[in-house]
């Protein structure tokens, strides 16, 4: 093969930026006589935020769903280019605001690896990070499950999940000073050490929470009405899920054991024993809405296991010591040498990635790109919502578990 294989040698082509918009407008205005455009959102609670769905429907049947986003676009990437790494951490908290700890953990890990200090972080700090991340993962999944119940028409699970989530919020507020947006995990360390008595309260919470999970199973997971609404609905085949970049519970519900906590073995996870739940198609097709729901329920149980192991170690070999300073490793000035690095971590919603480009001269990155799991998981919705009932569209959207703060960033 030679250079003659170059397919297109022209350097400039006519780049018509309006062509796709015109084609879209024509398609929307040329719907059939039986069809109707229904606008769902952006203010409707079942869209889980400010997502707008434009649905071409024929009676009760959805022909096509077109998502419109950007109502919550807060210019994360532009902001990150104008301030140093420490100042960007609160912005990452606001991306997936239901799992702020996990966001800042991923961001901080990337910066630490670029600085070359990732291996030197004390074990106690790593375990505290994992502990608060898993608490936050439970909180995030509780919201996913509770609001999914509301989407389907069950109100009680929502109240129960929020009641239990509130305990986690209170504990994280105790540690960080803030209820939802923590700014707790810092580059090289933590804002503060855990407050005295946190481990004991964690233990109390775990003891309280385990029976509640059994109740939740009785109330929702094995509820026949719930199963009828979710089983065999929105089945996502594995190859489609991979091709659409789905990750997290979306991908695992389609039957693939893919969890970055195990694949990348970051932070303290290699030393912790936990299973990766996957969808099995127990109630219907593999990868249907019920499977996605069930994977989240099982992940909560695994997170409880992780929390127990973290507390165990934090109370014994990694015990609190008076001379321990969680900010001892925090660099005065974070300026990694010139490089680019893509870090990925397992968020409650899936693979969260940050792509950094640094030029080595300033403590401000040249470019930070955030890859949100919700953004990619949502992109499969138009594929799943062809020739389904409108009520099922809500069931599918709820099972994807999006957070618009992360879709729009």
């Amino acid at each position: 093969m030679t250079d003659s294989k170059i397919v297109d040698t022209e350097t400039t082509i006519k780049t018509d930026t309006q062509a796709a918009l015109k084609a879209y407008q024509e398609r929307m205005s040329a719907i059939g006589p039986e069809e109707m455009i229904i606008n769902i959102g952006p203010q409707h609670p079942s869209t889980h935020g400010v997502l707008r769905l434009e649905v071409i429907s024929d009676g009760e049947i959805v022909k096509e769903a077109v998502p419109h986003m950007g109502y919550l676009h807060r210019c994360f990437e532009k902001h990150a280019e104008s301030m140093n790494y420490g100042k960007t951490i609160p912005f990452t908290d606001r991306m997936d605001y239901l799992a702020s700890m996990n966001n800042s953990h991923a961001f901080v890990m990337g910066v630490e690896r670029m600085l070359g200090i990732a291996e030197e972080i004390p074990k106690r700090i790593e375990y505290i990070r994992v502990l608060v991340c898993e608490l936050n993962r439970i909180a995030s999944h509780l919201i996913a499950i509770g609001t999914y119940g509301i989407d389907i028409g069950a109100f009680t699970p929502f109240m129960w999940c929020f009641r239990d989530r509130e305990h986690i919020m209170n504990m994280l507020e105790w540690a960080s000073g803030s209820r939802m947006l923590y700014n707790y995990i810092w580059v090289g360390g933590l804002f503060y050490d855990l407050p005295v008595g946190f481990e004991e309260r964690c233990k109390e919470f775990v003891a309280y929470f385990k029976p509640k999970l059994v109740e939740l199973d009785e109330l929702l997971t094995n509820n026949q009405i719930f199963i009828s609404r979710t089983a065999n609905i929105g089945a996502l085949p594995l190859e489609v899920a991979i091709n659409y970049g789905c990750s997290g519970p979306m991908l695992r519900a389609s039957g693939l054991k893919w969890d970055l906590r195990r694949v990348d073995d970051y932070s303290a996870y290699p030393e912790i024993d936990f299973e990766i739940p996957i969808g099995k198609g127990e109630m219907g097709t593999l990868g249907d809405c019920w499977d996605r729901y069930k994977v989240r329920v099982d992940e909560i149980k695994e997170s409880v296991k992780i929390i127990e192991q973290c507390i165990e170690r934090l109370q014994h070999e990694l015990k609190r010591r008076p001379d321990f300073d969680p900010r001892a490793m925090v660099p005065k000035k974070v300026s990694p040498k010139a490089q680019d690095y893509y870090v990925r971590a397992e968020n409650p919603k899936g693979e969260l990635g940050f792509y950094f480009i640094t030029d080595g001269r300033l403590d401000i990155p040249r470019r930070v790109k955030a890859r949100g799991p919700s953004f990619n998981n949502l992109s499969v919705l138009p594929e799943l919502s062809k020739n389904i009932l409108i009520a099922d569209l809500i069931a599918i959207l709820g099972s994807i578990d999006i957070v618009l703060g992360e879709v729009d960033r």
Partner: protein
Amino acid sequence: MDLQRIKQLLIAKFGASCIVDEELSGLQPALLIHKDFILGVCQELRDHNETWFDFLSCISAVDYGVTEGFGVVYHLASIPYRTQLTLKVMLENHREEQVLPWVDSVSSVWRTADWHEREAFDLMGIFFKNHPDLRRILLPDDWKGYPLRKDYKDAEEYHGIPIN
């Protein structure tokens, strides 16, 4: 599977000119692919049973500076082999609205590229040739300019509403 083997595979298939350069110094090695080959290279990397990069993690559009021009960075991951690979494409430094820097769309290889490329178009003004639906995705349809470019000037107003 290491980078040298991937290079061999690509050179055997597309010729030596498909790889412009390589970056080995950083934590993640990267291949600089010639713009004309990116679609074929992606297709080959996804389908070849030695590479099998079936998961596209991320597409990032980058403005390397007003004098340097633009680039697009592809982060691939292989689920069966548990490997990662970074591909980079350098584009022309076209900063006018009429002539955008362009590259072939890879949304026929990974469907997830569809929205990633729409985002790159929306915020950085990269044109993806043969993209199925290249509309703005995060900003309003009638927004002017591409905010992530280094030479972007903040808009004064939007539909008569003052900004800033």
